[in-house]
């Protein structure tokens, strides 16, 4: 992975920069010990790492502003970081960068059940937001699989989604406002009582900008009343195509489940060996979950059964108890762990129109065969967000390169059928160079103009998202100005 050459001038001034940071937020909140800083050298894309110049751990918006003012004056690149669970290298630092870690900022600032909002500091973990409002009968809808660890600020950075976003949307649909600090240290409130403000929807463009426009310190989130209950069904099929066609038919029929998850045979076999959920012997299966009171659930499931029967399922298993529900989800929830048992894997994150599912599954199977690398599929089928897992042996020379090439081909296929390169994990450094497959120069230029306005010096997380050649002149301009 190519990263820009670190700024030698910044590295040379390391001590004085650290001293200035200590002066604004207290000595204990700045880490410059190389051993301690190592904990911040990568995110969940651990193949790429680099220890940062220093790490700053503020506890208030004002402290964040003070840190950014120092870094701005010193022309030091800054990498905002939540919990570091990004799978795209979004919070990986460079050697000349200060990591701005928000994990200590985890307070709940306000909750109002009548208005259905909660305001939290950006370092608060996703799951703990739902836990906080649970007793009052509410929840926060976006539920990435990493929700136990990942932070609201990181969710906003990546516009994260989860299994239930088919019904409830992703972060951007549940975010009402943020307090954000710009690179020059100015503090701004974006959003409004209903989300966007009266002028331009700046909140909308900040969400998903991968920490490149500003550092979010506080967020106002929409919370929702919990549904009365939920129940999954498991439907097994004798081919992936049939399963894909059934997804389209369910959506077409107008029932809107909260989740439709898909697993193919390699994935079923792996999870069966790993967690023994007792899945049927079949080529592909769907887990469809619906919500409501028991009789509402029955009504929806009757309809889903009728639709599924047209596709001659191998099995239609309706959960009758909490325990059965748990077992149905068990395999899906342990799928990534199970794949880890089979070897190393690379997890892709492309999105396609649901109607293209059969074609893309066929294409992936052919490419996998040709490359001699097994691919397992487990994904959110309801919204077309695919996670093909390419299985390989990281110790075999040349395998990683072959995997990367196959991964790129699969993502290009996603774009070709009308989809996109990433549905939830983000571009980061991982998919930076593939951006040209989806965007023209003018498209990328338009996006970079937004960066120019929020962060004219290109100091915030600057080597991410755009291919390095494409952003080079802008990043160079900063260096020359310094």
């Amino acid at each position, binding site marked *: 992975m190519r990263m820009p050459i670190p700024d030698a001038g910044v590295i040379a001034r390391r001590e004085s920069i650290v001293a200035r940071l200590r002066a604004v937020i207290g000595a204990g909140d700045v880490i410059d010990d190389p051993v301690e800083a190592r904990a911040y050298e990568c995110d969940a894309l651990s193949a790429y790492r680099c220890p940062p110049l220093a790490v700053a751990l503020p506890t208030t918006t004002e402290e964040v502003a003070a840190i950014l003012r120092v870094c701005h004056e010193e022309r030091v690149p800054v990498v905002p970081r939540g919990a570091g669970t990004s799978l795209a290298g979004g919070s990986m630092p460079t050697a000349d960068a200060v990591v701005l870690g928000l994990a200590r900022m985890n307070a709940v600032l306000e909750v*109002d059940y009548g208005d259905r909002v909660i305001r939290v500091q950006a370092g608060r973990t996703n799951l703990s937001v739902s836990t906080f409002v649970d007793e009052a009968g509410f929840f926060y809808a976006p539920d990435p699989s990493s929700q136990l660890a990942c932070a609201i600020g990181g969710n906003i950075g990546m516009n994260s989604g989860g299994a239930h976003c088919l019904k409830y949307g992703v972060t951007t*649909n549940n975010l009402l406002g943020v307090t954000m600090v710009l690179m020059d240290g100015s503090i701004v409130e974006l959003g409004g009582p*209903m989300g966007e403000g009266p002028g331009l929807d700046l*909140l909308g463009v900040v969400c998903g900008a991968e920490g490149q426009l500003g550092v979010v310190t506080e967020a106002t989130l929409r919370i929702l009343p919990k549904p009365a209950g939920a129940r999954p069904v498991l439907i097994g099929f004798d081919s992936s195509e049939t399963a894909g066609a059934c997804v389209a038919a369910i959506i077409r029929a*107008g029932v809107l489940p909260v989740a439709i998850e898909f697993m193919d045979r390699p994935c079923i076999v792996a999870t069966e060996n790993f967690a023994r959920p007792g899945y049927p012997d079949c080529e592909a299966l769907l887990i469809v979950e619906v919500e*409501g*009171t028991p009789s509402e659930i029955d009504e929806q499931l009757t309809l889903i059964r009728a639709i599924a029967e047209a596709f001659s399922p191998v099995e239609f298993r309706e959960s009758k108890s909490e325990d059965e529900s748990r077992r149905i989800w068990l395999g899906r929830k342990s799928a990534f762990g199970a794949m880890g048992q089979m070897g190393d894997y690379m997890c892709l994150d492309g*999105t396609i129109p649901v109607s293209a599912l059969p074609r893309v599954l066929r294409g992936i199977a052919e490419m996998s065969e040709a490359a001699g690398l097994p691919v397992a599929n487990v994904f959110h089928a309801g919204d077309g967000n695919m996670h093909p897992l390419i299985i390989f042996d990281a110790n075999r020379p040349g395998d990683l390169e072959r995997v990367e090439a196959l991964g790129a081909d699969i993502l290009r296929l996603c774009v070709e059928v009308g989809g996109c390169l990433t549905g939830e994990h983000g571009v980061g450094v991982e998919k930076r160079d593939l951006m040209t497959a989806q965007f023209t120069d003018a498209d990328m230029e338009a996006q970079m103009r*937004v960066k120019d306005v929020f962060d004219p010096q290109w100091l915030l997380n600057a080597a991410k998202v755009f291919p390095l050649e494409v952003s080079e002149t802008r990043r160079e301009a900063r260096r020359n100005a310094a």
Partner: protein
Amino acid sequence: MRPETEAELAALIRAGRGPLSIIGGGTRLLPGEGQGTRLPTAALTGVTLYEPAALTLVARAGTPLAEIEALLASERQRLAFEPPPAPGSTIGGVIAANASGPRRVKDGAARDSLLGVRFVDGGGKIVSNGGRVMKNVTGYDLVKLMAGSRGTLGVLTEVSLKIQPIPPFSLTLALPELDAAAAVPALTAALTGPWDVTGAAWLPDLGALVRIEGLEGSVELRAETLTARLSAFGEVQSLKDDPWLLLRGNIPGSGAAPRSGSAIWRIACRPSQTAAILTMNPDATPLALDWGASLIFFSLAPNARPALPQGARALCLQGTHRGPLPPPDPVTRRLEDGLRERFDPRGIFAAPELTVA
């Protein structure tokens, strides 16, 4: 000027000296808009892709909203955000205004259903962002930025939208005795339980209104428990006629019937502020509450301005006042001006009134 293709439009803009006023149906221009040379999108029409099983539709910006809604209805589908159906209004105008009806309280605004855009910026460059899939975090989300930008950053040429199946059943409960302030706690009660309410509003003649939609058995069951909950606030009736069209189309100033002599204001706030706002503005005549009382429409004397608590936002829909209240803070203004300068460096899209407070 009547561009028929995106390329023609781009050439026109490159040659243009402005100021240009982008016009869809021209049905809902805000005070001060439409003063420049008119640039109509009326020839940029047509649905270019409709996949009912993928819940997506792509259309050129000048396509009449009515045409899109009729096409969707033929497949028992609809736009979730329930845009105001002013005759003549275009999908581009709806998106550029982020115009969203009652169902926003559950399914979000136009921006939440918008999956992708194509537009021509002020430099005549064609830009595409987003796509036609439900989830997409590839690059920055300019889709949201364009929604509600009222033609100040570029001319939308094509939009792709997430659509929604029409549920087989819909039912509206009304509490006709409640005045605006008294309706707020009833609407809040309806929205804080497991009923999946898809409309929560108040109209002067009909009182508080709560809508539920879904499969038949489920709607009946929810209606029963919801009625029990709402009885605490007054007499609950089940409405035969659909009142939601009134909220979508006929709010004075944002809808058909302008009231002469008064200004119409639209105020966004937290529902817990609504009663206080009504009290703070004793001379205002409430015209409607929507979105669970987080949106207030009222009329005021022509030169009066609404009093607002911290966090509430007001926009004059009909009258002489231009731009939002309170005006944007200096940092927000710097960002907004910066974006307008970058996307429209020659300042040909006439919209200074939006930044004039």
